[in-house]
């Protein structure tokens, strides 16, 4: 299945794009997808420890099983206020 990933804040600049769509097997783990993203955009790899991950409107950890239609967001620590 194909999963759309959107980057926010300076992750967008590090990736050089706002979104990317990647293939993964049904029920693949979110962590596997993130590794794929980092392999494709190596500048994001050094940010691994400060990377926040959401699926839809909720934060998820890397053990989450992706489902068809899930939309993933990757971004650095938030800074509202």
């Amino acid at each position: 299945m194909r999963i759309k990933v959107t980057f926010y804040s300076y992750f967008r600049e590090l990736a050089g794009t706002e979104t990317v769509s990647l293939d993964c097997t049904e029920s693949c783990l979110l962590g596997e997808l993130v590794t794929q993203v980092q392999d494709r955009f190596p500048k994001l790899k050094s940010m691994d420890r400060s990377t926040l991950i959401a699926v839809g409107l909720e934060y998820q950890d890397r053990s989450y099983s992706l489902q068809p239609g899930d939309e993933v967001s990757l971004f650095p620590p938030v800074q509202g206020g």
Partner: protein
Amino acid sequence: MKRSLTITRDPIDESDLIQGRDLSSEAGAAITFSGIVRGTEDAAAIDGINYEAHEAMARHQFEKLFEAMETRWPIESIRLIHRIGPVRVSEPSLWVEVIAGHRGEAFAACQWLIDEMKKKVPIWKHPMLPESHRLRRSRSDPNPGSRPSRG
């Protein structure tokens, strides 16, 4: 608990918000917090901050915080406004109002909400560098001001 959440590109008119305040006869404490853009970021002068949001997720995360707040404290009303887009120095980017029967719960809930939003709500700051600075840096760094900052 009455709730009002606004994420907007428009300036925050605090005076107007105060005039629109709606109190029950049991309200004893109203607290407002204005988060204002400071003139320096990481010791460098800035013109303002450009706020970026993952807006749908930000709304959802704010609503979840309001839910949690309601279970923890007896709050009569919460109003929160966060600006996105460019906000100039000395203008508020965030305005929070908490109304409750007593000040203890109003202060506790207001501070908790701001602390939690700074961990959970997907909004980011992009400092707006002064014109002179942008021109000087334009050849060496195509994206000044978008890297991590202390917040």
